[in-house]
């Protein structure tokens, strides 16, 4: 009930797009991100991102390296975070409602298409310092179980690091690796495995 109220109050805001404060002036950083974001180097984040009804699909990129960096300002105000509200977490049309990042087999690197999603959540965390989240990493059933725990922990660490770059505080984010213990689906096929290789972003109260 509470969520609904908040959402109703913030509705008008959802219609506008917001520029996200960002900073990456470093083209090299782009290269790094292309492969993996597990690298701890660089304190820079992306320049900007967009959220809203358009979601990830509304991303425009001028980067020749790829279209994964939401570094283009749709909105001219880079400090406008009006669209990042807690109510967005429960709005199915809001990108914040999407909270699963999927991974490649035996990899902890973030796929480019999840940059915007991660950045968006990072900005939310940055905007609400009291907001706490858990990043729950998972693996598919292949390979050994404790190795998968480590792998899934690394996946959540990858996400956390990227969020840190985007302004989220370390104390806001807890990581956990569940390995292959908590699958989404029980199938033993490629589709099932893909669904199970993931990091789930979980907010304590939302």
């Amino acid at each position, binding site marked *: 009930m509470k969520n609904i109220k908040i959402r109703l109050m913030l509705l008008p805001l959802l219609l506008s797009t917001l520029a996200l404060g960002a900073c990456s002036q470093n083209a090299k950083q782009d290269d790094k991100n292309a492969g993996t974001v597990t690298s701890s180097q660089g304190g820079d984040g992306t320049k900007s991102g967009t959220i809203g009804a358009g979601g990830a699909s509304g991303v425009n990129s001028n980067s020749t390296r790829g279209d994964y960096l939401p570094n283009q300002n749709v909105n001219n105000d880079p400090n406008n975070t009006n669209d990042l509200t807690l109510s967005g977490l429960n709005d199915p049309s809001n990108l914040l409602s999407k909270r699963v990042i999927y991974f490649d087999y035996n990899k902890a690197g973030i796929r480019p298409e999840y940059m915007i999603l991660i950045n968006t959540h990072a900005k939310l965390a940055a905007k609400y310092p009291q907001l706490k989240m858990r990043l729950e990493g998972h693996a598919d059933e292949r390979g*050994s*179980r404790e*190795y998968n*725990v480590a792998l899934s*922990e690394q996946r959540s660490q990858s996400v956390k690091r990227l969020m840190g770059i985007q302004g989220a505080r370390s104390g806001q984010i807890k*990581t*956990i690796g569940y390995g292959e*213990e908590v699958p*989404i689906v029980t199938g033993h096929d490629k589709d099932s495995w893909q669904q199970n290789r993931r990091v789930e972003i979980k907010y304590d109260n939302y």
Partner: protein
Amino acid sequence: MRNGNKMDKVSNSKTQIIEKRGGWSIKKAFLPLFSVIFILLSSSTYAELELHISKTSDDGIPIYIANISAGIPGGHNGIIEADLKRSGRFTIVNRSKIPNIASYGETLNAGAYQDIADYIVRGKDNGNGGLFIELVSTTDNAKTNYTITANENPRRPAHKAADLIYEKITRRKGAFDTRLAYVTVTNSTSKNRTFRLYISDSDGNNPQSILSSRRPIMSPAWSPDGSELAYVSFEKNTSAIYVQNIFTGAKRLISAREGINGAPAWSPDGSRIAMSLSINGNPEIYTINTKSGALKRITNSSAIDTEPAWNGTGSIIFTSNRGGSPQLYRISANGGDAQRITFDGKYNSAADIANNKIAFISGNRGAFHVAIKSMSESGKNMLSNGRLDESPTLAPNGAMVAYTTLRNGQNTLAVVSDNGKSRQFLTSPAGDVREPAWSPYLHK
């Protein structure tokens, strides 16, 4: 002297017996290889034999277990038979081959059954749940008698008998009177999913749950005295290592540090528990003193280091992807440089060590199998042929490996002998079974 010279001369004329051979492969290992061709090269009256023995054979020592009556389903003889068979070292002779064998206490002319079995086992219930067991060799008619006391677990006397028979014949300690710990999960994808930690006999019988949780329970590891289990719990939404007494249920927290607290493994002397912690950012191997709690970092790499297994008290085998793919490495239990010990295949992990053997998971072309190798040999043998086999654990004598394998869409327990000759699937309580851990020899 003359005779001696004669012998020498005689020994020069040899006769060769050449056997058909096949290269090593799992398939071949399960085919009887006994087509023997004899070629007489010399027509000499005296000739020494030359015989060929190939590693590839599924033939075991033929043993006949007479009916041992008892109030147990299948009888004590059934338990003993299954045990001996599971070791991959025996062939159980069908009881119909000796239809009316003299029962325990009556005179037995064992030599008469020489062509049927190498050994005959007879026995009887002592009336109080204990057993009288008699092992007779048909080769020399030698008899060995055992008296086995009763146990609150009525199946254990039979396992003890199997151990004694195994030890007498193979001169190696038997490991049938041991336990397995494992985890089951029911409703794995729903909110009602339940994890349970079980302990059963080594043949899967007599399962008893000692812990249950809505959150994952992982990686049970036996203390060297067989009275405690270390395991990983996600009870508090983060991983933690606990130790629980299997008899009293008392449990204590060993490690709940930030990040991963995983893969506990007791040192053989019980003084330390090795584990994987990520307090410094990425998973590394640490040891923790079980009395003082002192923590010692063993590995130092920017990659995943996990799944430690003690190779004696001096060194640790663990899984690391420092080379790009998960492989097994060896490191001193005091730290230092690690040496890679697996080289073929893109995925070698989850080592378990007993009696100088390492069982581990070897992945190739998307399939994961149980492999076994000797600490002193570079080669390995594949022991399983499932699609997604996991969590190998060696019996304390190194003669058998328990692991999980997918059967009918669910993970189930299997036990394979170290030579690959025998494989049994164990029954277990409802649910997906995972992470068996074979207990040490029992002292109680």
